[in-house]
């Protein structure tokens, strides 16, 4: 009889523990749904979509970066390369090959994935070396593109996609990319794969010792983390009609992705969304009120964040208030 009691007790605590996990996932899903719904309404309610468009772009960039940093512990300093290659793939397919925009955007994603596969051997490097090699490869990629025949890439002048202009459609394309990114993060956080990735992040050697195929598991995160910025790069090129070779591979894009994700909290699900929204909001206000010293002020805000909330906004809240771990992930 005792074993029946025991089985019932195990079952009860399992129900309770699983309930907690499901609750967290539901809270995050609800939060994401609210963000997506609010952003979907912006073009309908106001004529000014610029802020919202870039908010979506940065949420995508920060959340996708979180997949590789938060779930595997690798910090790719050359992260911008996926975004730049996505932008160029869309631009070249549209402008030079004459493909329709939807197909050109698919090409962005494919280009991002191909590049990630090409760079996959670097995942065997240890953390710091990986970061530096990734930065070097991003620079090389920029040089290659800058030196391709200019009737393909537009050379140092870049590409102008004048006839494709459709701010409304491109806005919703970005919304779609952002939603797909958030869904992937949500799925990952719940899946066995996500747990394996976090185990790898904490100790890759020990992870291998419990049967996790470390290089293969890391590769999945790496491909996801490459796909979304590549798509975002393609959509942004469509939205602005311009691909500028300097900007498309600018180290500032990597830096912003890192800062936004960190401000919210690497490894938390909603952190990068919160971080991007808060910092972009602050940036926006500072820019309007103090146009001359805006970069200085933004720098101070970021330093203050790192000093006082080293785990990011969401990460710090969870550390200080463990009871909230039941609701927020």
């Amino acid at each position, binding site marked *: 009889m005792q074993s029946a009691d025991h089985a019932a007790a*195990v079952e009860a605590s*399992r129900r309770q523990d699983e309930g907690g996990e499901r609750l967290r996932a539901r809270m995050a899903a609800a939060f994401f749904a609210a963000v997506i719904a609010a952003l979907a309404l912006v073009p309908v309610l106001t004529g000014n979509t610029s802020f919202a468009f870039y908010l979506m772009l940065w949420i995508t960039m920060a959340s996708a970066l979180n997949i590789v940093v938060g779930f595997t512990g690798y910090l790719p300093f050359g992260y911008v390369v996926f975004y730049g290659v996505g932008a160029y793939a869309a631009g070249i397919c549209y402008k030079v090959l004459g493909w329709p925009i939807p197909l050109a955007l698919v090409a962005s994603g494919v280009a991002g994935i191909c590049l990630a596969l090409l760079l996959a051997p670097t995942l065997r490097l240890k953390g710091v070396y990986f970061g530096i090699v990734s930065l070097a490869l991003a620079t090389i990629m920029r040089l290659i593109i800058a030196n391709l025949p200019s009737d393909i890439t537009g050379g140092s002048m870049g590409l102008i996609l004048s006839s494709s202009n459709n701010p409304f459609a491109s806005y919703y394309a970005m919304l779609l990319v952002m939603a797909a990114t958030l869904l992937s993060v949500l799925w990952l956080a719940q899946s066995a794969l996500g747990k394996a990735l*976090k185990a790898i992040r*904490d100790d890759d050697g020990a*992870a291998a*010792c*419990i*049967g*996790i195929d*470390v290089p293969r598991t890391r590769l999945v995160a790496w491909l996801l983390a490459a796909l979304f910025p590549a798509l975002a790069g393609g959509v942004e090129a469509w939205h602005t009609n311009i691909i500028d070779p300097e900007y498309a591979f600018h180290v500032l894009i990597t830096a912003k992705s890192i800062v936004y994700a960190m401000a919210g909290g690497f490894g938390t699900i909603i952190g990068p969304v919160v971080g991007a929204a808060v910092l972009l909001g602050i940036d926006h206000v500072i820019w309007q009120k103090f146009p001359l010293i805006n970069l200085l002020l933004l720098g101070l805000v970021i330093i203050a964040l790192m000093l006082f909330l080293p785990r990011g906004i969401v990460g710090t809240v969870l550390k200080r208030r463990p009871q909230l771990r039941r609701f927020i992930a």
Partner: protein
Amino acid sequence: MLKVEGLQKRFGGVAALRGVGFHLPRRAILGVIGMNGSGKTTMLNCINGIYQPDSGSIRLDGKEIGGLPVHTIARRGIGRTFQVPRVFSHLSLLDNLDVAQGQMGLSAAERYEASSYWLNKVQLFGLRHNFAEELSGGQQKLLELARIMVAKPKVILLDEPFAGVNPGLAQLLIAIIAELPREHDCSVVLVSHDLTSIYQLSGHVIVLNEGTLLCEGDANTVRNDPAVIEAYLGA
């Protein structure tokens, strides 16, 4: 079950293993003792694939596993713990055990059942939602043992399971290890400096010295071997 022959491993000029071998029968506990630097950890690292042995053979159930990747060897049924515990510090205790069953094709309920069984066994069930980093060093060693046991291994390699564990927890560990062969059909390679527990647990003991086998035999034989007394106990 596990048969190791002529294992050699060099690190630059240092010959860490110079032809070590042993046979671990099914459901046995093999004790491994030896001074600091005698090659005990290196031997475990070669068996589970962390290091590629320079030569020698390692067979599990008659099949050669030497040179396979670490995760493949783990999936074939060899689990190990570390001299300094290596838990997944930012995963909860439950997730530490859950992730170790990721390759077994079990349902979430089955995984939970195994996790809660082993967490209860090592008396950590009450802390199951804590991050592993919030455990004491000794508790982390218990968690590591639970983490390999949920995967139902055929052979486990324990590297100094009692080091840094207070006497109370060590007693618990000894009791758990003692019943692994019979209750969980698991064979154990037990590396330890704690001679008392080795003699208590192991039917067969091997003594390593500078990468070679100094002597082997049952606990009593080893305890009274003059070469061991001289080299190991420094008497």
